[in-house]
């Protein structure tokens, strides 16, 4: 009798909860008009001021869908097609000595509240931020801009304090950039730093529809006058995505479940295992960067083994090269990404235009590159690594692994360094090291031990890579322990509080060969003493006169000059010779798309836009998506 009562109660509870499956997922918005994107959990959900500290990094759609600036570079693109004039009608025009930049603006662009966008907005953006230290782009404007003028409503002239051939990159979006402020809104507020800009006026095709005060979601709506935006005026037809929902879909496991339940169209990143689950269980409703294994999208970011050059013995290039020769990259690729890694021997990510500008043309040089171990000369480069990894993953993925070497290179990279313990031993001996049993001793007779810092769970693939490398070095007589830094990782990297770390110190435009994006900060004049915080990039504090010469030469040529790629190669060759850090691979992201409601996502075959939810280039994907005619009917 009691059992029957319990069963009845269970049925009643089930009857109560089952309707949730039939409830509309977003109240009042048809699911087939909404693109649902993985977003963050906002602490201050009511804050929409992009220009306050930290505001420029908003990942909730604010910068991705409503902000605009002069130019965009598609991080996946190549050649001229990667460049987009957004608010500007043409590329930047510099005077001869790069002390003045003139920008011509497009006409017919309006803010979402109906006010026309003009050069006055740009002037106001620069001047206001210079007057308010602490605003997002105040510092770079203060450092660079002597004065800014608007000779007419469509022209802006920047007079610079010193020659700067890359000043325009402040207004060029790869991930974000200096967004233009609405003068007519901000000039009415007392303090632009404490103004919450709620509701925000939009300069792009979408405008705020509603948001969760608890910070879990923000919904953006296509503007009625979407044609009066820089992105809208280039479109032939109205975007089919009427609403964009940035929702915090929780932990990585929950994201996988939400996509399998068709409640999350675009994922930013999940673990390889999550990707494989989606590929297995929902292959018919999933699109990925590569249509099959390795699925992942390579970001223009270069995870590497970083050495602290201000700590002995990592200032010695023979030691760095020895450690590189002790890495079996196949095991690292298999252990970290289960084989789905795009390997990089050069010190630039193997993505976007870098493949055609650097990786392909430098293969011959890499193959013939010679390394002096102290007792002999070796050729350490192995161009067949992609084929070796293909052989390792083929038993699991079968026909998804092609035989064509070029396709394999696109999937797994162009090559890497051979594992050569003998050469490593010779290099260590050349550096004055000795071996006692299976333990390497430093020149002063103390054991050579390493603490290898990884961030931890936040980036599990890199933590796994670090663990494997630590094992490999330990097995060869260099006792290496993994040091999990957790949330202190960034701080310790910046402060130089590490021996060796797995992280990245190189990021590029992706869609442009110019390496100044990171290289500028590698100049020796910016290197800090141990204990002080190093500016972003050059976390290894690598210092070299030849590097300075390359950076100084790059400053004197324009962004699009043909010399840029040659200078890039000079840097890459120097980095191979010196091995200041050991590049491992592109930062592959597993970012599957659900095609139940939307199709036409970018892919390796058609890389027309960035695909990461947090990249502002994503807007070019949003307006191109097509509604799936076979989507479930609107409820």
């Amino acid at each position, binding site marked *: 009798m009691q059992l029957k009562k319990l069963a009845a109660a269970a049925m009643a509870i089930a009857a109560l909860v089952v309707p949730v499956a039939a409830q509309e997922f977003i109240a009042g918005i048809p699911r087939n008009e909404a693109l649902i994107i993985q977003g963050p959990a906002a602490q201050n*959900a009511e804050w929409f001021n992009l220009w306050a500290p*930290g505001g420029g990094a908003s990942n909730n759609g604010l910068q991705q869908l409503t902000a605009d600036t002069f130019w965009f570079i598609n991080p996946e693109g190549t050649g001229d097609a990667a460049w987009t004039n957004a608010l500007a009608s043409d590329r930047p025009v510099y005077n001869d000595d790069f002390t003045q930049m003139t920008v011509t603006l497009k006409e017919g662009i309006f803010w979402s509240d109906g006010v026309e966008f003009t050069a006055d907005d740009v002037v106001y953006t620069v001047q206001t931020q210079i007057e308010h230290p*602490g605003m997002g782009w105040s*510092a770079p404007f203060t450092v660079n801009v002597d004065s800014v003028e608007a000779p007419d409503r469509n022209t802006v002239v920047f007079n610079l304090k010193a020659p700067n051939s890359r000043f325009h990159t402040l207004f060029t979006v*790869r991930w974000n950039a200096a967004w233009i402020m609405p003068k007519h809104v901000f000039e009415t507020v007392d303090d632009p730093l404490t103004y919450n800009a709620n509701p925000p006026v939009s300069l792009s095709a979408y405008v705020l529809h509603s948001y969760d005060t608890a910070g879990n979601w923000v919904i953006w709506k296509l503007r009625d006058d979407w044609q009066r935006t820089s992105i809208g005026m280039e479109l032939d037809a109205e975007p089919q995505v009427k609403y964009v929902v940035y929702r915090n879909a929780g932990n990585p496991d929950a994201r996988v479940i*939400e996509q*399998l339940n068709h409640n999350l169209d675009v994922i930013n990143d999940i673990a390889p295992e999550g990707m494989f689950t989606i590929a297995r269980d929902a292959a018919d409703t999933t699109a990925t960067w590569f249509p099959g294994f390795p699925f992942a999208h390579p970001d223009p970011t270069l995870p590497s083994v970083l050495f602290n050059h201000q700590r002995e013995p990592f200032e010695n290039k023979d030691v760095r090269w020895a450690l590189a020769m002790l890495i079996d990259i196949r095991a690292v690729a298999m252990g970290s990404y289960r084989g789905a890694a795009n390997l990089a021997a050069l010190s630039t990510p193997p993505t976007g235009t870098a493949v055609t500008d650097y990786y392909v043309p430098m293969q011959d040089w890499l193959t013939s590159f010679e390394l002096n171990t102290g007792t002999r000369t070796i050729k350490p480069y192995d161009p067949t690594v992609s084929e070796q990894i293909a052989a390792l993953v083929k038993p699991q993925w079968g026909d998804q692994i092609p035989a064509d070497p070029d396709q394999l290179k696109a999937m797994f990279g162009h090559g890497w360094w051979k594992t050569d313990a003998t050469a490593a031993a010779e290099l260590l001996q050349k550096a004055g090291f000795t071996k006692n049993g299976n333990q390497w001793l430093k020149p002063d007779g103390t054991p050579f031990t390493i603490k290898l810092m990884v961030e931890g769970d936040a980036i599990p693939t890199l933590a796994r890579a670090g663990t494997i490398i630590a094992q490999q070095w330990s097995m060869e007589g260099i006792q290496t322990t993994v040091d999990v830094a957790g949330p202190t990782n*960034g701080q310790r990297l910046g402060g130089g509080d590490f021996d060796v770390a797995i992280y990245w110190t190189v990021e590029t435009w992706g869609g442009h060969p110019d390496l*100044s994006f990171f290289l500028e900060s590698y100049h020796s004049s910016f290197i800090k003493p141990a204990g002080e915080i190093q500016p972003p990039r050059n976390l290894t504090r690598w210092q070299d006169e030849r590097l300075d010469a390359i950076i100084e030469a790059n400053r004197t040529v324009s962004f699009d000059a043909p010399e840029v790629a040659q200078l890039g190669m000079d840097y890459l060759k120097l980095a191979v010779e010196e091995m200041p850090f050991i590049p491992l691979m592109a930062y592959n992201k597993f970012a599957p798309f659900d095609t139940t409601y939307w199709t036409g996502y970018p892919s390796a075959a058609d890389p027309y836009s960035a695909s990461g939810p947090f990249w502002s280039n994503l807007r070019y994907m949003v307006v191109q998506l097509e509604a799936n005619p076979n989507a479930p009917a609107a409820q």
Partner: protein
Amino acid sequence: MNGFAKYLVQRLFQFFLVIFLGVSLAFLITNLSPVDPVEQSVALMTNFGATDPRAVELMREALAELYGLQGTVLDQYLSFWGRVIRGDFGPSLSAFPTPVMSLIMSALPWTIGLLTLALAISWSLGNLLGALAGYYRSNLLLRLSGAAVMALHPVPAYIIGLVLLLLLGFIWPVLPISGGAQMNLQPGFTIDYIYSLILHGTLPALTLVLVGIGSWFISMRSLVSNIVTDDHVVYAELGGVSSGKIFSQYVARNALLPQLTGLALSLGNVFGGAVITEFLFNYPGVGRLLIQGIYRGDYSLVLGVTTMSIIAVAVAVFIIDLLYPLIDPRVRLS
């Protein structure tokens, strides 16, 4: 000074001492954190973008000034106490310039709703089952439920939550697995919104109940098992008092006293949030806020949440201390 006044003064002294020591310790620990909020903000603003090292230097100086992080640790400590007394924890450093208090107050209702309900259920159910299991030791159904509760007790909240998430969010997808309410639904006292709140709160609440019920069950059963052998219970049984009356009046009531203290402490802990469960189900409560604060080096926020929690626990214990003499004559007499 009569006995109760003396008792009150002692408890008040303890109350303020606990708050002083707890908050001071929290201040010290958060200030020892190697995560610098200025560096976190600089990283946010320079992440993924082209960065001029000279501009980064300037940015760093401007933010340190803006965040008011100058001065010695002692200066900051004294200033912090001034703010605590005024009920103002200053601006959040990771959500600058939003006041920490605003962030806490917007997250608190979610946590209080979830944790109070879950605590009420687990406390009532755990104690009831524990008391029954301790008193009616030969009852098969109670022994089975005891075994089930004991089996769940050592399982971490993360595992239970994950299993529920998979079971009721994926295999049999009948409950939402993320967030506090349906998207785009206007908050208010409407049937739709309340229904949505219940649906979204079910999985996290169930997780907390399953995790929490075990400790109440075990401690209550153990208390009851001791009390049933006490002289007054044996005497009542020999005197022919009904077993129902013995259970409710002689056994359960006595066993409930320490459980009430536990309840008060747990109620105070509500203000600290249920970190793992809120994280797992993406529930917008104080626990999730605390995690965000820790990861972003926002020690204003961490201190705000911690201080609230310390004060809440101290207040709860203080209230229970005051109520104890009313419930337990032995305390009043002593």
